[in-house]
């Protein structure tokens, strides 16, 4: 009974947000006219090369963010998950991943015409930038997305299982979904789904994949009350700062050019995490009477996640509202973890999955301009379809991939190795000397 009445409030709350915007839907204006034949723009090229480097820097940032939260006996293995993603997936992206995501005319997946960057030359363009830069920029997203999953399954997986998982997952989940949403022939792109920098393609599907994999491999050994011993919160704070720094390239580069839109995307990427950090700390203060460093870091990341799909479409005021709203949602999702009993080690699902879905839907609510003839209600409907389609596809595919790996080469590490710590057992090293 109690649950039903809580749901009622939730529904009322959502409607209170939606109804005014539905009524305003008619104000939507048409998008800019199509540009002329592409020529190389040097400023765009510079900005996208810089942005690629910024996004790359998020991966070591993620390693620090995740590495600080685990136990000291697993700090290296957790940070290595991010670095192994760089190593393995750079090769996958070069050999066939880029082609599978961004070529061909099929609405569901690409082909292999660009495998090994075949046919891409110094003067091959994608819009106003060299195709090489497009390969680089999109490649950074393809590296970090599978690395995000490692947060849900840290402290208890085999290295071989992890490598197999991210390789298969990048091929069967990330590349196709990137094709759906971002390739010119992708079905969600044609449907008009708005995802500026990857709310669904990056955060939703990686968070959901983390949940699916965590369900397959099970909980870490031990009582939940003995599991939370962050080894170094200073890493985590620094990591969240580096993520934020890199995210300016992630969001402001996603328009694939340097213009006012990129500038505004940069602005909202500064604003939303600040708002989300504020609400996270306030909620925590009310709930536990403490304002934790982990709370600040989590709020910042939740704010970055929620603004990602919206970065190119919303006003600075909307960025404040989205930031303020995302923290209670993600905080609630993390509390729910204890009740539902799955073990999402570092809350990859609670923050990236839930925050990504929430951001994608709010993008429909707050987008400043919609395509011609599209009402606000229809746009929100398209956003919900994109969330459900990408989320459901990622959950089912990830569950099957994780399950097959667990049954074949093994995903979960042996119990005695888990007790001794993955650093010593897998890597033969310790994060900290005496």
């Amino acid at each position, binding site marked *: 009974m109690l649950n039903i009445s809580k749901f009622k409030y939730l529904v009322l709350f959502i409607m209170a947000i939606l109804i005014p915007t539905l009524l305003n839907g008619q104000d939507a204006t048409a998008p800019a006219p199509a540009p002329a034949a592409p020529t190389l723009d040097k400023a765009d090229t510079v900005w996208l090369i810089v942005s690629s480097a910024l996004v790359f820097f998020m991966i070591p940032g993620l390693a620090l963010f995740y590495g600080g939260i685990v136990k000291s006996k697993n700090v290296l293995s957790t940070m290595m998950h991010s670095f192994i993603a760089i190593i393995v997936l750079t090769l996958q992206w070069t050999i066939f991943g880029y082609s599978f995501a961004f070529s061909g005319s099929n609405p569901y997946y690409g082909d292999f015409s660009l495998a090994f960057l075949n046919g891409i030359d110094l003067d091959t363009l994608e819009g106003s930038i060299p195709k090489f830069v497009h390969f680089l920029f999109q490649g950074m997203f393809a590296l970090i997305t599978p690395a995000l999953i490692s947060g849900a399954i840290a402290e208890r997986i085999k290295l071989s299982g992890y490598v197999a998982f991210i390789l298969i997952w990048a091929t069967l989940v990330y590349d196709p979904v990137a094709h759906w949403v971002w390739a010119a022939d992708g079905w969600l792109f044609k449907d008009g789904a708005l995802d500026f920098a990857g709310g669904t393609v990056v955060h939703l599907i990686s968070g959901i994949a983390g949940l699916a994999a965590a369900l397959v491999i099970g909980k870490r050994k031990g009582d939940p009350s*003995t599991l939370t011993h962050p080894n170094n919160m200073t890493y985590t704070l620094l990591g969240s700062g580096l993520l934020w720094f890199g995210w300016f390239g992630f969001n402001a580069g996603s328009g694939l050019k340097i213009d006012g839109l990129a500038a505004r995307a940069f602005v909202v990427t500064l604003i939303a995490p600040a708002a989300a950090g504020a609400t996270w700390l306030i909620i925590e203060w009310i709930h536990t009477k403490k304002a934790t460093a982990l709370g600040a870091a989590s709020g910042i990341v939740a704010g970055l996640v929620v603004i990602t799909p919206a970065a190119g479409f919303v006003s600075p005021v909307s960025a404040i509202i989205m930031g303020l709203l995302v923290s209670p949602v993600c905080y609630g999702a993390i509390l729910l973890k204890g009740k539902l009993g799955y073990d999402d080690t570092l809350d990859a699902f609670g923050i990236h999955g839930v925050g990504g879905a929430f951001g994608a839907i709010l993008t429909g609510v707050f987008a400043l301009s919609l395509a011609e003839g599209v009402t606000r209600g229809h746009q929100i409907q398209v956003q919900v379809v994109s969330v459900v389609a990408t989320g459901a596809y990622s959950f089912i595919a990830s569950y099957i991939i994780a399950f097959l790996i667990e049954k074949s080469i093994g995903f979960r590490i042996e119990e005695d190795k888990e007790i001794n710590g993955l650093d010593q057992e897998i890597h033969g090293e310790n994060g900290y000397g005496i």
Partner: protein
Amino acid sequence: MKLIVAIIQPHKLEEVKAELTKNEIYRLTVSDVQGYGQQKGKTEVFRGHEYQVNLLRKVRLEIAVNDEFVKPTVDAILKSAKTGEGKIGDGKIFIMPIEEVIRIRNGERGNSAI
């Protein structure tokens, strides 16, 4: 009055703490230590070269108790610190006499100060 010093496996600390609390032993000092006994260390890797590290991470507990608490304390540690697989490395318990205990706050001495 006795000082009980126990060297245990690091991952057993939480269980030992819980078991001590259950047996109403509310005083405990814990330190991170390194050492070895029968395990004789392990192998680590540094840029491709294996080398022997003969110091292993352990946790050292120090508990000062009155005589009647010695048995419950030892029993609690024995019960909770054993990994139960018959493997070496679970650690040891040492019991030694205490000459005097003085509470710094008020200078109180003896059994009541412990």
